[in-house]
């Protein structure tokens, strides 16, 4: 992986400003925008945050996050009253806790397997997890319904989104803020600093007395918990879940969201998700149809082009670009980077 970005203290003023804006947004935008753009960006951002958390602090780029959130979403949808699946009619709050627990435990198992590999191998193993989860639910229709699990019962606090999407938006917003703060605080704990040590120099961590595999496994478990939250929220958002919503395309979409936002900062998750949701909904209106090149599926073309530009122009994603701009405005020019260490002959 690329080098490394440090832990930063949480930028409180910026966070408060953004949250305040998000809190008054319902007064400013339509119900459609509130749901299809903002609510979606918030839960999709949580999914991307679980990926970015592992990448930025642990140096692990995981493609398992959609598989894990699929497990949480499927678990929740099966446990509560719904049309399809097990429809166990468990209390939604209880189901929610159980779904997160299951996702976390499965995540710990996945993590334990994946923790010994690095780089491209880690990527492939985690991709295999997601594919496995997808095929499992595609085939076990007893758990995924025929054509998905529909009309999933939601906890009271979310209300009835068809009538009023506001409670669901606010719940998703609060959870997203808690996830952001929680992961930020975590990164400054003994465990979180250890994660960053593992990211930068696993061999040194071993030489210092750390159990690198255990550290990676637990980090994966924490990310699975966060991905699980996104999975449950996605069911709140759709009020249904199908195997098709946790397939390979969705795995890639979450990766794209994370890369567009910026793999090195948690904030990037939501910036990427918002960008994604906007393009997803408005690419037809904003961009004219141009023959076959920008046909009805111009969303994919646009996202693809944006992805390419960002990968080429700024490995730090949109957040990285924003950071570079603000640095240019604030300080004339940073001191030149230190000379690379002279190579000792070996």
């Amino acid at each position, binding site marked *: 992986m690329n*080098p490394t970005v440090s832990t930063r203290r949480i930028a409180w003023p910026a966070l408060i400003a953004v949250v305040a804006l998000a809190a008054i947004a319902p007064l400013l935008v339509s119900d459609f925008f509130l749901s299809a753009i903002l609510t979606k960006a918030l839960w999709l951002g949580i999914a991307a945050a679980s990926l970015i958390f592992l990448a930025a602090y642990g140096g692990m780029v995981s493609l398992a996050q959609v598989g894990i959130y699929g497990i949480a979403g499927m678990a929740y949808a099966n446990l509560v009253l719904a049309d399809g699946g097990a429809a166990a009619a468990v209390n939604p709050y209880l189901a929610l806790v159980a779904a997160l627990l299951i996702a976390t435990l499965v995540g710990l198992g996945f993590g334990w397997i994946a923790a010994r590999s690095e780089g491209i191998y880690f990527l492939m193993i985690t991709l295999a997890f997601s594919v496995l989860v997808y095929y499992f639910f595609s085939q076990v229709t007893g758990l995924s319904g025929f054509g998905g699990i529909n009309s999933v019962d939601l906890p009271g606090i979310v209300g009835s989104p068809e009538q009023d999407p506001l409670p669901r938006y606010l719940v998703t917003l609060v959870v997203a803020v808690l996830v952001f703060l929680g992961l930020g*605080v975590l990164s400054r*704990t003994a465990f979180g600093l250890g994660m960053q*040590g593992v990211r930068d120099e696993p061999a040194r961590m071993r*030489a210092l007395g750390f159990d*690198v595999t255990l550290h990676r496994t637990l980090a994966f478990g924490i990310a699975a918990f966060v991905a699980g939250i996104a999975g449950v929220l996605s069911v709140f958002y759709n009020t249904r879940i199908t195997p098709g919503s946790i397939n390979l395309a969705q795995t890639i979409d979450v990766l794209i969201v994370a890369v567009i936002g910026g793999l090195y900062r948690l904030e990037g998750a939501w910036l990427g998700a918002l960008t994604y949701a906007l393009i997803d909904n408005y690419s037809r209106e904003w961009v004219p149809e141009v023959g076959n090149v920008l046909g009805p599926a111009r969303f994919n073309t646009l996202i693809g082009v944006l992805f390419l530009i960002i990968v080429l122009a700024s490995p730090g994603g949109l957040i990285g670009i924003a950071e570079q701009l603000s640095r240019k405005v604030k300080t004339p020019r940073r001191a030149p980077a*230190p000379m690379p*260490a002279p190579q*000792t002959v*070996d």
Partner: protein
Amino acid sequence: MAATATHEEPAPILRLTGIDRRFGGVHAVRGVDLQVRPGERRAVLGPNGAGKTTVFNLISGEFPPSAGRVELFGLDVTTLPARKRARLGLSRTFQTSRLFAGLSVEDNLYLAALGVSAGHLRLVPSGKDGTLRAAARAMAERIGLDTRLDDLVMDLSHGEQRQLEVGMALVAEPKLLMLDEPAAGLSRAERVRLTETLIGLDEDITLILIEHDMDVALRVAKWVTMMHDGRVIVEGTPDEIRANQTVHDLYLGSGLIAHA
């Protein structure tokens, strides 16, 4: 892991018996025997490719030997993972710095102090870890980095990074300290400072030092092991080593004593 009682006086803190290591076709270490007593100041010399770093890696548990036995503190640790050897009281530095580039100087030292203590997985804010934080800051002062506590390691100069390497090994309060070319690439002033740090080390700490700079190595060490081609070829006092013809042919004549 079997505890093997040692019958010698004083019991060695480190004993290598018939240590061998191959990398594919490269026979990097060939049947090395080595004993280091508690409190010793040992230098390991030898031209590049002699196998010195590989011996360090075998002692610290980076990888296992192809054959032979490693005993540390009277225990057979041949198959013990690196992290457990560290927790027994072994600290090492790396020839090319292996620091946490994305973390601050203080956080690097904090992690080094945390490694040998309990609570690696705690979820309390690390800033509240008073004892370890104090140890980290005290070490930063000792290695002259107290003005750079909050700076990222990637922004340090090469010399500062080498100092931090040593600091991270020391802050764990090891019984056995192994330094792999700590003076490489340092300025003259930095080398003097390093030499003083090493000479001033607590007498209870056992030191094994790989160092090309004779000025540093022969001033710090009381006993020298000379390696060539994966083997130990001469051992002796610094004076004996200076006078040894084989050493001169192999090593001192090669321009590597430019600093001396």
